[in-house]
């Protein structure tokens, strides 16, 4: 019988087809990848679409500057992008964006009318999907806040954690020659814009602190000739906190904003007191040592302060009602100005050792001490950003130059100077305004 029949040919064809389609059995490869290098994320932010293109470009530029300053993003030059102006409505062409090596893409639009309205979408070009889409509005006076709010949204979705761009910094603005410095209270947006001066500079002011609600402040002033603690609403008049103390200084608000903890120096001893606004003070520490620079934990249960009861200035923790204190700083040198982070997991401090000034952080039990910045010139007075990831402090190079504000993130990266109109010192970071 003949072999070459149609049936045989069909069989052969099917068999051959099956053979061709067969793939070698795949096994599942399981791997574990740990760690990785931190690199800033490339992000493309074309100008925001707007009926006023200049306005759209300005808002986009504020966003780019914010993200660049954070050190976690690398906004690309807008001139090099495929599209100059963003389009919020339509999905972007991911292929072209991928070609420019962009991982994240921000499309936004902003309109200024009775209110300033803005819409923003963040796209992941590799996954070709939207990451977040939000819309915001604010009053026209604070149109820059729109840019800061948008920056916060981008920051939180792409890098985890909350943002810190919609905040203000209260500080002491110094001007004039070194021998005759004029120090005034000032407040500005965290990117340096919108500076407002709150005091005349007639008398010396130190260590201003903004309240947890962001609308009042407390500071030390030499109005009386002696340093005394004052408090005031923003833009309002100042009032002395307590009467009858020879010297009081180093004030800080409690987390609920209803009381202030500060130091009183009375006949050679310096102790920590707490007082409600308009009430009478309660003493929290006693003894012959100098206890100063108190700072509340965010939950209000403990106070970190500086004391030299052990012989040299070190950091101590005690309960909010006073009582036994526990030392937490054991490194080399002397420690001062402890500040508890708003997230509650870190304490920033100033350390002097080896002839240098260091700004560092440690955990509340004293472990995990990490120095973020070291300098031969005087630098101190750290303050925390609301997300607990950035620390701002001031550094005085000495000589005729005056102090300036610097910031660094808690991993020690991205140390940079915050540009201010005049010399600046004693920064205090406000919480998020929104």
């Amino acid at each position, binding site marked *: 019988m003949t072999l070459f029949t149609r049936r045989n040919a069909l069989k052969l064809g099917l068999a051959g087809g099956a053979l061709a389609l067969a793939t070698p059995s*795949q*096994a599942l490869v399981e791997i574990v990848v740990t*760690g990785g290098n931190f690199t800033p994320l490339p992000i493309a932010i074309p100008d925001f679409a707007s009926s006023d293109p200049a306005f759209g470009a300005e808002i986009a530029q504020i966003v780019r500057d914010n993200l660049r300053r954070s050190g976690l993003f690398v906004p690309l030059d807008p001139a090099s992008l495929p599209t100059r102006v963003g389009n919020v409505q339509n999905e972007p062409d991911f292929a072209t964006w991928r070609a420019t090596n962009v991982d994240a893409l921000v499309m936004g639009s902003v309109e200024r009318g009775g209110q300033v309205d803005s819409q923003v979408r963040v796209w992941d070009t590799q996954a070709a999907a939207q990451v977040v889409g939000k819309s915001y509005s604010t009053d026209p006076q604070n149109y820059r806040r729109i840019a800061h709010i948008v920056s916060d949204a981008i920051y*939180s979705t*792409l890098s985890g954690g909350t943002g810190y761009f919609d905040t203000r910094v209260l500080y002491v603005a110094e001007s004039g020659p070194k021998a005759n410095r004029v120090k005034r209270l000032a407040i500005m947006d965290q990117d340096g814009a919108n500076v407002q001066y709150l005091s005349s500079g007639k008398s010396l002011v130190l260590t201003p602190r903004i309240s947890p609600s962001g609308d009042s402040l407390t500071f030390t002033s030499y109005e009386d000739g002696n340093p005394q603690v004052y408090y005031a609403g923003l833009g309002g008049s100042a009032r002395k906190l307590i009467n009858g103390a020879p010297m009081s200084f180093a004030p800080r608000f409690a987390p609920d904003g209803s009381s202030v903890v500060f130091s009183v120096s009375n006949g050679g001893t310096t102790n920590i007191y707490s007082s409600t606004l308009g009430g009478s003070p309660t003493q929290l520490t006693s003894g012959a040592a100098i206890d100063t620079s108190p700072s509340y934990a965010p939950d209000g249960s403990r106070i970190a302060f500086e004391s030299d009861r052990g012989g040299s200035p070190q950091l101590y923790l005690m309960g909010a009602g006073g009582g036994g204190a526990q030392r937490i700083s054991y490194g080399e040198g002397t420690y001062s100005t402890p500040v508890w982070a708003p997230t509650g997991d870190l304490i920033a401090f100033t350390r002097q050792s080896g002839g240098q000034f260091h700004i560092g952080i440690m955990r509340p039990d004293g472990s995990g001490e990490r120095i973020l910045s070291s300098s031969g010139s005087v630098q101190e007075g750290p303050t925390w950003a609301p997300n607990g*990831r950035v620390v701002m402090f001031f550094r005085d190079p000495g000589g005729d130059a005056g102090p300036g504000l610097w910031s660094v993130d808690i991993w020690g990266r991205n140390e940079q100077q915050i540009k201010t109109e005049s010399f600046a010192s004693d920064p205090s970071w406000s919480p998020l305004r929104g």
Partner: protein
Amino acid sequence: MRTGLTVSTALHAGLIALAIVGLGIGQPIEATPVESIAVDLVPVSEFSNIRMGSLDSQVLETETPSVVDTETPPELAQPTGNTSEDQPTPEDTPDPTPAPTVQTAPAPEASEPDPAPAPDPEPAPLPAERPPAAAPEAIPDPAPEPDPEPAPVEEPPPLATPVETPDPADAAPRPVMKTASLTEKRARFKQQQEAEKQKKADEARKAAEDAKQAEDAKKADEAKKAADARKAEEAKKEADKKKKAEEQKRIEQAKAQEAKKLADEVANIINNEDTRGATTGDGGQKTLGREDGRSATLSQSEIGALVAQIRSCIAMPAGAEDADARAELYFNIGRDGSLVGQPQITNAGSDMIAQAYARAVARAVMQCGPYTVAAGQEVKALFQAREF
């Protein structure tokens, strides 16, 4: 023309002759034997593939087989004997070591007359002892009866006479060729000997008692003597019966043991089958494991290369390490090494930082170019921000 031909022929012949001679002079080339190495091309999968398993397989609890075939589980050996006190030194027993039994025909009845003359000297001292019992000799009929009894009884204890051998012959059956341990056999034999000794001791004791009773009765009361003698006789008969019954029992026990042992042997021969331990093979239970458990077909170094390649591209978000972010990705690599489709994030945390980390590692996987190392594989990758 002619000259040319001759010259050419001569030269050719000369050349050929030279070649032949030259070849003869030359040495044959000897090939030195080279040691060759056997080379096998073996795919990696032969070493890295694992057996297919079954998820619900039972775990077999196989006990180590014991040397001795016993039902009782092996126990820790207890210190034998009394080790805290000095023990009396063993003395040489009058019994010689038992010789292995030899099957011989039972001795003829001629041995019986031997006890007969033996009691003759003995009754002599007896009447000598009891001169006052001369009168009771009137009732000597039952008297001599107990007398000859002790005699044959006294004889056997010193020796295992052929008279008694039929009994041990039944008790200790024909030695069968089997692989029971020698010590066991010896122990058993010793047991049997001891049993016999016990038996004989019992008999001796009983008989002695009986004799004593008879004598006492004789001494004490003549009238009771007959009854006592009769009682003694009956007692002796009972003892005899008991002895016989015990013997029977012992014989039966030994027979039963023997039968059991034979049955064991037969069972061993019948039930001879292959081991069912936890090894691969036909039958038995599958090893405990996944049914689709095939090991990775990448060697360790290839896996390391893949991990390094992906790791170099990861742009980690800022707080991921502090937050100990983790993500699990599942992706397919095509034949040419490029990614097929998009990686699926199978398991990522719910907070922002974990999602940012998951996106970052997905981007890294997509960007990191052709994975020639793992072409044609499915990969399940677990990412951890913190490096331990």
